[in-house]
């Protein structure tokens, strides 16, 4: 590589020139060529002379103020962007909260209706009076879109069963008596109901949901896609124990 080529490749100086594949070779030449080094040094001196002739001029204060205003004007946009993001996040939280509250209210209304139905059927007659769980299950067959399982509840007496409608959902209603107190077991398709209106408890390692309404205790559990709801004026602890028994009995099928 000759001097002319090297000086062209390293124009104006090695620090500012365009780096090409020949750069390394040109730099190697420069290290060994005093004439080229002098030329490059003279270019650097010339550049410094030019710089000395053009000291940076201070921008007028009015321009500085205008630029400051432009920069400041961009900050509210940033702020509003953050506010919008915060508002969007708050809206999502509120929407979720509102959805949860509506769901909870709807769920509570449904289970209150179950309690009221229990009271309604206290004096009602069974459509099929029987103490035989299998007979009652057979009777429900083809009457519901889910399989009705009639459990035996310890010392409780099985009285009979009937169909009922809860908020347009078809349900099986099984009557028991325990300690001379009526106990109703409602069974319905679990997909039709949300449990968010009830309080959740865990008994014997399994979840149970409960509520109290107008002197009635309610206990619920879900099994194989069927929601089982026990309602009685028994003490809540007794009813929960009964519900736990019913769950174990149902699981034995």
């Amino acid at each position, binding site marked *: 590589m000759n001097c002319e080529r090297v000086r062209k490749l390293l*124009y104006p100086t090695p620090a*500012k020139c*365009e780096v090409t594949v020949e750069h390394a070779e040109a730099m190697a030449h420069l290290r060994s060529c005093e004439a080229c080094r002098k030329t490059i040094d003279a270019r650097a001196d010339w550049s410094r002379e030019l710089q000395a*002739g053009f000291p940076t*001029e201070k*921008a007028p204060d009015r321009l500085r103020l205008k630029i400051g205003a432009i920069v400041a004007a961009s900050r509210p946009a940033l702020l509003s962007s953050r506010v919008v993001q915060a508002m969007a996040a708050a809206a999502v939280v509120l929407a979720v909260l509102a959805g949860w509250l509506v769901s909870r209210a709807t769920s509570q209304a449904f289970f209150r209706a179950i309690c009221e139905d229990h009271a309604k059927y206290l004096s009602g007659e069974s459509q099929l009076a029987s103490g035989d769980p299998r007979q009652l299950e057979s009777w429900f067959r083809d009457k519901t879109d889910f399989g009705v399982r009639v459990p035996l509840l310890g010392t409780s007496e099985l009285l009979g069963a009937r169909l009922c409608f809860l908020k347009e959902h078809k349900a099986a209603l099984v009557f028991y008596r325990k300690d001379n107190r009526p106990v109703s077991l409602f069974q319905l398709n679990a997909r039709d109901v949300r449990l968010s209106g009830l309080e959740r408890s865990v008994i014997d390692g399994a979840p149970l949901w409960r509520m109290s309404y107008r002197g009635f205790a309610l206990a619920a559990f879900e099994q194989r896609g069927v929601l089982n709801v026990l309602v009685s004026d028994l003490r809540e602890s007794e009813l929960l124990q009964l519900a736990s028994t019913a769950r174990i009995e149902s699981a034995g099928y």
Partner: protein
Amino acid sequence: MKIVPFRSSPENAVERQHVAEVLVAILDSLYSTSVRMTGNAQAAEDLVQEASRKVVQSARMLRERRNIRAWIFKVLLNSIRDYLRRQKLWREVDLDAGDSDFTVSPVATAMHDVRKALARLAPPLRAVVLLIDIEEFTISEAAGILKIPPGTAASRLARAHRELREQLGAYRAKVPREGGVL
């Protein structure tokens, strides 16, 4: 400088703030370049203001944080070129033409010093001198700012140096003479 469509994110907010900080830090350099390119202090102020507004507004489009200074100069030189074209003072340089063919800016009134000599250069030549010699950008960076190939930037710089050398008798001894190069 690569740009991508706007995406609103906290990163954009940080980017805009960073660009604004760089803008304020190099304001004197921007103003100096603008004055030397236009020869008109009021026009220089207006152009810096216009470019600053564009820079702040476009900061959200910036993808690379590297070399924000070069990007800001690019925005400013675009505004300056548009201004000079409106004033019919900007004409692309014919690198094959002789020295007598270049455009002499009306900004130049005499050749008392190096400033006057620079003012006599055609704006495209003056721009490479200001960017590479004064603002110390590399050939590649100046080429990016002026949207020309690096080879063209180097040729314009060599041409500008040659014309300055011939105008500046007082500096002639210091100017390297490189006959035939570039």
